[in-house]
């Protein structure tokens, strides 16, 4: 039987997105389901990512599965010079599912070609991190009741931020999305995405100012503006304090609006926002466990 993996967000159809949303809601209502009893799940973290690994491992534990693996490559045979090919071949003989993070781009796609069990990409360099996108979508679904007709404001690093690109690709599958991009010129949304939106007749607006234009938003998706992304450090100094969300900016925003952030946050959301009921980023992280339970159950045909 051909196994199904999740490497890029576009590997799933709209129907699969909606199934993940339904399953995640089901797991949130009934988190302790022993669907993975007797199953072994490998979490192979060739580079450390505590947040993502703990979220996946919580999901596996909630489902009653057993975990094997490593949390950074220094404690694996990679440090002895073993190839990714051989590590995946070996582990796919032991486990029922592989969840992997690796610093090289394309590594997860390659692992899925080598493996005879499903692979979930938990981040391959700057390329893809699809479980993050599914938890973002689940957070939008939960707070807005739908994934259709969402006015989505993406703020910060829209050039290199893989989460914003994947979220954009996924939301294209739903009815009438509106995209607003707020970013400094150096970190603007790449042309390939704007051309794609234009070719589909989907509305998008670009802004370099972070002002009361956010009053139209259903979702504000914040990302970090990182200093190392700028060629000219003077440009960074100019913009570093512009793309910071503060509580006072939320006065005129819609009641249903919620603020998302893939975390970790540095300073782009001021801590005075945290107590505002519109701040959703910590609940969003919690939603990640349910979304990951749903992904695992779907790929292993358990639901």
């Amino acid at each position, binding site marked *: 039987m051909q196994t199904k993996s999740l490497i*890029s967000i576009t590997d799933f159809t709209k129907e699969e997105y909606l199934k993940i949303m339904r399953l995640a809601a089901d797991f949130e209502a009934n988190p302790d389901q022993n669907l993975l009893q007797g199953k072994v799940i490998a979490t192979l973290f060739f580079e450390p990512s505590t947040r993502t690994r703990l979220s996946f491992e919580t999901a596996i534990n909630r489902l009653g599965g057993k975990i094997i693996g490593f949390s950074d490559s220094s404690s694996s045979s990679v440090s002895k010079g073993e*190839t990714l090919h051989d590590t995946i071949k070996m582990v796919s003989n032991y486990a029922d599912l592989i969840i992997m993070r690796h610093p090289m*781009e*394309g590594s997860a*796609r*390659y692992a899925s070609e080598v493996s005879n069990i499903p692979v979930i990409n938990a981040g391959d360099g700057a390329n893809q991190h699809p479980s993050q996108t599914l938890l973002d979508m689940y957070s939008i679904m939960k707070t807005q009741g739908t994934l259709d007709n969402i006015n989505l404001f993406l703020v910060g690093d829209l050039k290199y931020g893989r989460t914003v690109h994947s979220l954009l690709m996924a939301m294209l599958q739903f009815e009438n999305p509106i995209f607003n991009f707020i970013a400094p010129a150096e970190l603007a949304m790449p042309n390939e995405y704007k051309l794609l939106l234009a070719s589909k007749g989907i509305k998008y607006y670009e802004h370099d100012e972070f002002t009361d234009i956010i009053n139209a938003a259903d979702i504000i998706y914040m990302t970090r503006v990182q200093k190392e992304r700028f060629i000219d450090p003077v440009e960074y100094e100019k913009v570093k304090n512009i793309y910071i969300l503060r509580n006072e900016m939320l006065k005129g925003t819609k009641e249903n609006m919620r603020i998302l952030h893939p975390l970790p946050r540095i300073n782009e959301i001021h801590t005075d926002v945290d107590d505002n009921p519109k701040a959703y980023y910590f609940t969003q992280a919690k939603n990640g466990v349910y979304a990951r339970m749903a992904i695992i159950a779907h790929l292993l045909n358990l639901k």
Partner: protein
Amino acid sequence: MEKQLQVSAIKDGTVIDHIPTKALFKVIKILQLEECSQMITFGNNLDSKAMKTKAIIKIANRFFADEEVNKIALVAPNAKLNTIRDYEVIEKRVVKTPKEIFGIVSCFNPKCITNVENIKTRFEVLSNKPITMKCFHCEKITNENEMTYL
């Protein structure tokens, strides 16, 4: 004055014409002609009305399937293939850029896994002129002027 052939004729085989002069040895490599035991003659920097200068390869007793010869589209997009039987051209073909390219070029992205492990590269061709290709593994775009041949 009688027109003289710049590269001598073959009785049976394939003539690959209209190869850019700089691409001659790349075409030889891509088609693995160095391993071919048949008689091969080639000329380079020949006069051409359309291209000013061109290269030509004549391979005796060797015939190519479309998917085999389309691999050279990356380096010789305007190449023409003549199939020869008993000194006569019995078929003329043009090279077509394939939708997918396996091997031949490396991925432009230094962080791509295909540049680290022993993996055959695989690309989806997004456009022909100029050629842009998307890596199946890392999903990054490699443009025509960034291509490195394996």
